[in-house]
């Protein structure tokens, strides 16, 4: 089963709960030099009362054709056949940041040891039938992890406001 992270931007308020849950799950301490895997932000386009405001939460999109995989000179990244997540083993990571240059969503970060780290979709949890930490915590169910089939179904039904990415480049 292949999964896709979906963000319903109408339900997101950019609160950061997902980002905190991610740090809790992955023991990330940004002040000690860890990068964050997930970021929340607000984009205000225009200054009038009804001008659009978008709240978002972004992390690795686990692109179908993930450009980071080809970008890595050491072969650290790969697709997990079971979940479709873009997973990694950074034993041979040389800290060259090539994956960062390949990623359209600024997902790869580099930790205290200079090696690449990023969202792994909470793959161990998902394998056990649990939700990723960010999805589990979301107070408004704005973030979800859906199967490829469900995603296509939702798209066919044109359920509004769905947002998911597959990298174009």
């Amino acid at each position: 089963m292949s999964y896709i992270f979906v963000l319903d931007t109408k339900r997101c308020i950019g609160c950061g709960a997902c980002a905190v849950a991610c740090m809790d799950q992955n023991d990330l301490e940004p002040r000690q030099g860890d990068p964050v895997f997930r970021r929340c932000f607000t984009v205000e386009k225009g200054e009038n009362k009804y001008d659009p405001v978008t709240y978002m939460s972004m992390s690795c999109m686990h692109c179908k054709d993930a450009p980071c995989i080809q970008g890595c000179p050491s072969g650290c990244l790969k697709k997990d056949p079971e979940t479709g997540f873009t997973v990694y083993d950074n034993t041979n990571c040389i800290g060259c940041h090539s994956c960062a240059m390949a990623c359209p969503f600024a997902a790869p970060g580099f930790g205290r040891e200079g090696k690449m780290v990023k969202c792994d979709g909470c793959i161990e949890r998902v394998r056990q039938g649990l939700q990723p930490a960010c999805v589990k915590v979301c107070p408004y169910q704005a973030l979800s992890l859906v199967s490829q089939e469900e995603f296509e179904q939702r798209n066919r039904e044109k359920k509004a406001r769905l947002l998911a990415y597959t990298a174009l480049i």
Partner: protein
Amino acid sequence: MKNYAIVGFGCAGYHAARAIRGADPHGRIAVFSDTGQPPFNPMLTTYYASQRLSLEGVFPFGTLEEVERELSLELHGDQPVLRVDARARRVETQAGGEDFDAILIATGARALVPESLRQGGGDFFLMRTLADAQGLRDHLDSHRVEKAVVVGGSMVGIKVAELLHRRGIQTTMADAAPYLFPLAAYRSTAEAIEARLREAGLKLVFNAQVSTIEPGGVRLVSGELLEADLVCLCIGTRANVELAANTQVVEGQGVRIGRGIVVDERMATDCPGVYAAGDCCEGIDLQTGKTAIIGLWANAGAQGDCAGRNMAGLPARYYGNILHNITHFFDMDFIGLGDPRLPGQRHLFQGKNYTVEIALEGERLNSVNIFGNYRISGILKSGLTKRLLDGGARLTTAQQGLLRAEGMSADFVELIGGDRAL
């Protein structure tokens, strides 16, 4: 059952083999390689030489046996290919010749060594192959080196300089260009990097045309001698095109070759059934629309993948790429996107730990230099590439927000193709 030949087994060759196997589970894939090693990444030489990477680590796709098993390949590891007969689609080795349905030439590139430099009688190291890396590593382990000169302010050169410097060797980097990374960096960015390098203790010499390498060091055209007990030559690479050059499309007419083997969007040469991918070929440079060598690991992978699909009969296109580079050295990041020699109005953005400079020609973003802040580079690269493929393409709201989250200003985001935001 189709018969495929892959000549040369690096990044492009591996990805082609994988793409073929993905599309054609039963076809026969014959791989010709004379290195006797699994696909190797030349970018990792300096990491191996500096002992930051193990021997297994330089082979990103595993051992030859693993790759052979994974993709069901037929390996011809000890037979250099002598000739490719294009009309017959025939690969000739000393053992004889064999016909194929499709042939990929993925012979890569080699370190450039102008003959004239050898005239001085001095030894020098190169940094392209595993043997090069092993050689430097062994030498450093067994010899006392006090002074070293790296010829060539290239992306490899800087990493060699770094590894020597980190061993406490007094290191000089010399380049004929007026500043560092002239093919990727603006002068302003280069000078900022140079200042940091000098601060770190590296000696830099520019406009330094090398005459010869002598036993005592590097002799410049100006007559000056840069003393060294160790010299490493890192002035660039040359595509391995000889095999293609021997290939005739029709009697008396060769495969088109520039600096590399010229290919189209399907990675096809102008000889039907013969493809080329990776560092040996010239793909399309999106910014100029012309073909050019873009000698990058990821580019080789994408080209190999595209070639493989086409060889197996799938309609794949690789629309090309832009010049782009990321180099992490001395705890710094330099990222160059697009051709810095293209014209454009420069805009400089500075933050606490980074500078980003861009060149805009009208509304068109022509190039970007990032010093620090590696994390935004992928968004900019994807934005730049997308706009070249589709002039109207904008950064997505998510990308705009991510750039802001990484400290970039609203003005910057708007300039490079975002919306006006607060």
